[in-house]
C-alpha cells in the first residue's frame, strides 16, 4: 500500500460512525412478528391471485364468446309465469270491459321470446269476438301474449286448429331449422297455464273462451302430447298446426280435438 492510499484509508477510518436508533431492536422484533403472520395472509392473497389469474380471463372470454356467437345461438324461450286463476279472472274482466280480447303488454312481455318469430296468423276468431290483427310492435316485443295467443282470426276461412308461423318481418330466417317452438309456448298460445315436467304438463288453468276450453280441457288434466308429439319434443318453426291434445284424465287417456268454434 502506498502512502497516498494509507492517507485515504486513514480519512475513511476517522469518519464518524452512526449508531442504530434506540428502538432498533424493538422494530426488528416487530418486523419478525409481522413476518410470522404474513405467510397466512400471503397464502390467502396467493389464492386470490390464482383466482384472478384464471377466472378473470375466463370471464372476459365468456363475454366475448357470448357476443360473437349470439347470432348463431338457437333461440331460447323464456318460461312464462304461471297465471293464477285470479289473474285470469282479471283478464276476463278486462276483456268484458273492452268488448273483446286485447293484447296485454305485461303478459306479452312475460311470455316473450328473445327473437319473436311466433305469431297468430290473421283470420282466426274466438267467442269473445273479433280482434284487430296483432300489431307489429307487440309481435316484435315478444311474439304475443297469453291473450293474443288465444286471439281470434279475422278471416273466416281458417284451417282447424291453431297455426304458428313466423313473422315475415322477423330477422330470423324461417329456413333456419334450428329454431324450435317449445311445448310450453304452444300451451301458452292455446290459453293453457300448466306446470311442465320432462314428460307431461299438468294443467293449472284454462283460459275461458279459448279453443282449449272449447275442446273440453280442464284444470287437473295431464297433457302428454300435442298432435301425438311427446311433450319433451320441441316443434320446428314453419307452419305448425295443432289439432289434438293427448291428455290423461282420471287415469284414462283422451284425445281432445281442437276446433275453432
Amino acid at each position: 500500500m502506498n502512502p497516498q492510499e494509507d492517507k485515504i484509508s486513514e480519512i475513511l477510518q476517522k469518519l464518524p460512525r452512526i449508531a442504530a436508533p434506540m428502538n432498533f431492536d424493538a422494530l426488528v422484533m416487530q418486523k419478525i412478528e409481522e413476518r410470522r403472520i404474513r405467510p397466512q395472509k400471503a397464502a390467502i392473497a396467493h389464492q386470490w391471485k390464482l383466482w384472478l389469474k384464471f377466472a378473470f380471463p375466463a370471464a372476459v372470454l365468456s363475454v366475448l364468446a357470448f357476443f360473437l356467437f349470439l347470432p348463431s345461438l338457437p333461440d331460447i324461450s323464456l318460461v312464462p309465469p304461471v297465471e293464477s286463476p285470479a289473474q285470469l279472472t282479471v283478464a276476463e274482466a278486462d276483456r268484458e270491459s273492452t268488448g273483446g280480447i286485447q293484447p296485454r303488454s305485461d303478459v306479452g312481455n312475460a311470455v316473450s321470446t328473445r327473437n319473436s318469430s311466433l305469431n297468430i296468423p290473421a283470420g282466426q276468431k274466438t267467442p269473445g269476438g273479433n280482434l284487430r290483427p296483432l300489431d307489429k310492435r307487440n309481435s316484435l316485443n315478444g311474439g304475443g301474449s297469453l291473450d293474443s295467443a288465444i286471439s281470434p282470426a279475422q278471416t273466416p276461412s281458417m284451417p282447424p286448429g291453431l297455426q304458428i308461423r313466423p313473422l315475415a318481418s322477423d330477422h330470423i330466417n324461417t329456413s333456419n331449422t334450428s329454431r324450435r317452438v317449445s311445448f310450453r309456448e304452444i300451451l301458452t298460445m292455446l290459453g293453457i297455464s300448466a306446470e311442465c315436467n320432462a314428460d307431461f304438463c299438468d294443467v293449472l288453468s284454462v283460459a275461458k273462451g279459448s279453443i282449449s276450453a272449447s275442446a273440453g280441457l280442464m284444470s287437473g288434466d295431464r297433457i302428454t302430447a300435442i298432435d301425438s308429439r311427446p311433450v319433451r319434443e320441441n316443434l320446428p318453426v314453419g307452419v305448425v298446426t295443432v289439432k289434438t291434445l293427448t291428455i290423461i284424465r282420471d287415469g284414462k287417456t283422451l284425445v281432445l280435438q281442437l276446433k275453432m268454434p
Partner: protein
Amino acid sequence: MANEKTRNDQKSVLQEDLHLLSDHQLMESVAGGDESAFGEILRRYRDRITNFIFRFLNDREEAIELAQEAFVRVYFAAGRYHSGYAFSTYLYRIAANLAISELRRRNRRRLTSLQGFFRDEESEEKDYDPVDGGQLPDRKFESDERSRIIGRAIASLPENYRLPIVLRDVEGLSYEEVAEVLGLGLGTTKSRISRGRAILRDKLEASGIREN
C-alpha cells in the same frame, strides 16, 4: 417476592452467559427459538451493520431500514445457518446484498426518470458537491461538512469499488474477510480496494479535501 428475586438473578446470569457466548453459539440458540440470544446478536452488530449500509448508500433512514431487514433475515434463516464462515462475514454479506439491491433499484428508478431525458450537459446533476474553498467559521460545522462531502464521495464510487472500500477502510475488516463477504479472490479484492482509493483520492482532491 423471593421467587421474583431468584428469577431476576437467573435472568442476569443468563444475560452474562449470553455475553460470553460466541456468535455461532448464539445462532444455535436462535435456531432453537431463544429470542434473548437474538437480542445479544442485535446488540453486538446493529451499529456496525447500520453504519456499513449508511456509508454504502449515504442514506441514514434507508440504512436503518435495511439493517433491520438484514437482522430479520438472519432470524428466519437461523435454522439454515452453517458455521463455515465467521458470523460477521455472513451478516455483512446479507447486508451487502440488500444494499446492492437497493442501489440497483435506485439506479433503475433514475434511469426511468423523465429528468434524464431533459438533462443537458450544463445542468448535469453532480454526485457530490465540491466544498467551498473559503474558511469556515465553526470547526464543528467544518467537520460535519467534511464528513458529508467524504460520504458523498464514497457514495459516488462505482459499486465494484465502493463495497470493498467501505468494508475495508470504514468497517475495518481484513482483506480476507472482505474477499469472503464479496465472494471474490484475495487478489481481486486488493486490486479493487487500491483502485477505489485512487478514485476516491481524486474526488476528494477535486472537492478540496486535503489528505492531511
